[in-house]
């Protein structure tokens, strides 16, 4: 896929995020939007997956360790064909299968239930280890928040992955620099993120996580890296492409009202229109 095609899909992914969170009147748009290019690149370009066969034992796996950004994952899965895009409007509604946080038992394409921060990389390690033990050559991707890596279990898992040389594992840190209580370097700084992962025996790649060229080259480098897991520290913009949400901690976990929703839809229309003129 070309970058332009991927960029257009990312607009649709963002639209699904906004539609879902607006309909739910709750949820986490900021960190879903910051990771839209990461979700899009993984599901439309990088991962070996088949929406018609979501349980294929040889498929690549994805664990959304920052499970509160489920709207981003769901929108990507829907746009990729795992379930109808219209269902995004049932997000967080009573009786909907689209639970507030990823539920592997009921959502096609969700490889691991998550939501309680810090736990996803461990599960991804288990999947990667299973691949090694079974001689299957699938890859495992885990997406963490930059605030999330304040959780100690992340580093237990990193120690395990580095020690066991799980080179089929790629951890991505969505480094949008904001957590609920403020900028991550003002709350309880996890910086330097790259050096931390390096010291846990990861190959580390630092990129602009909203840029498809950089994502393409980073994931290719990760795949080519043998003998150690890779961490991609992806610098991103929280709330990206929604004018009033960009780089705003207020939009971590809040839904837009009807007026704000109209502005957001218009923002995305403009982004899409600009892409069409390319």
């Amino acid at each position, binding site marked *: 896929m070309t970058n332009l095609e991927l960029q257009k899909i990312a607009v649709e992914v963002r639209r699904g995020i906004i539609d879902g969170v607006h309909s739910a009147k709750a949820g986490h748009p900021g960190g879903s939007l910051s990771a839209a290019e990461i979700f899009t690149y993984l599901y439309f370009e990088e991962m070996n997956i088949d929406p018609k066969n979501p349980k294929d034992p040889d498929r690549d*796996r994805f664990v959304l360790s920052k499970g509160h950004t489920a709207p981003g994952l769901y929108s990507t899965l829907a746009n990729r064909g795992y379930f109808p895009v219209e269902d995004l409007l049932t997000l967080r509604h009573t009786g909907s299968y689209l639970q507030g946080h990823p539920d592997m038992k009921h959502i096609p394409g969700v*490889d*691991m239930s998550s939501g309680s921060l810090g*736990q996803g990389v*461990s*599960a*991804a390690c*288990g999947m990667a280890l299973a691949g090694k033990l079974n001689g299957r050559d699938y890859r495992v991707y885990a997406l963490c928040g930059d605030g999330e890596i304040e959780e100690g279990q992340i580093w*237990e898992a990193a120690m*395990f992955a580095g020690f066991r040389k799980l080179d089929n594992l790629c951890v991505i840190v969505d480094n949008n620099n904001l957590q609920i209580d403020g900028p991550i370097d003002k709350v309880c700084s996890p910086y330097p993120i790259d050096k931390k992962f390096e010291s846990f025996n990861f190959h580390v790649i630092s990129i602009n996580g909203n840029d498809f060229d950089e994502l393409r080259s980073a994931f290719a480098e990760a795949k080519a890296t043998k003998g150690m897991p890779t961490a991609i520290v992806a610098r991103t913009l929280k709330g990206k492409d929604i004018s009033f949400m960009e780089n705003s901690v207020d939009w971590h976990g809040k839904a837009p009202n009807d007026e704000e929703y109209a502005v957001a839809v218009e923002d995305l229309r403009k982004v899409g229109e600009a892409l069409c003129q390319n």
Partner: protein
Amino acid sequence: MSELKPMATRESYGNALLELGKEHENLIVLDADLAAATKTGVFRKAFPDRHIDCGIAEANMTGVAAGLSTCGFVPFISTFAMFAAGRSYEQVRNSIGYPHLNVKIGATHAGISVGEDGASHQCLEDIALMRAIPGMVVINPADDVEARAAVRAAYAYDGPVYLRFGRLAIPVMNDSPDYKFEIGKGVLLRDGRDVTLIATGLCVYETLCAAKMLAEKGIDAQVINIHTIKPIDEEMILAAAEKTGRIFTIEEHSIIGGLGGAVAEVLSEKRPTKLTRIGVNDVFGESGPAKELLHKYKLDAEGIAERVQKELGGTA
């Protein structure tokens, strides 16, 4: 009673894993630097590729097991009950319980019979914690035979299972050739008319001995072994309530939320019956040799018999 050598159920756990490991290639064992104590060493020696030492990091071990299970492995997590149910409670709940993954938790060193290590390592709350998780099966076997059968049943069961084992070597009771283990089925070990003593884990043997002491005092006690605390055998408990009209529960666990709690829930909702919960009375344990502690906390045969007699209004 058996002439077999007493054995700690943690040893039974390791031995059962070794047997099952030969039969099932998808069985995998995880430890957190305690393989020597959880007795999984025999498995590690036989199947080094299927033994994963996660180091002193129980939360990660729990999540790794969850991930392995999504790829077709049947992981047995092994560590002390304090860390399996305590340290990793939330990982067990959210990474294993919520997605109902096929992970087995082998929790050794439960209860005050840990002994000398003292209160920090004597988990008395694990049954309460684990039984509150939807879909979790909780098994507390009473001897070597039952423990090995429980591990086998846990493997065969599709879903999360918490297995509670002890450090102290205890007598083997279930030595009959027709012994059968079924998850969720209580075992009537001794018939009696006056009172029902429902026990679990290492307290089962002590309770049987207590029943003999009580018989000498003219109290005809029946003894039930509840090895599966969840799902609990309601039918057997209600039948016992109907028959004897008086129930005691005996466990090496807090009286809050364990076997006593589970039996109280059944009785109070379905057949209100006078119940006395014998266990650790909402206090932490302490250091000391295991048998001395069981005596001090009145969880040995003598202590159990004394308490039953006292509660029934007899002379101590």
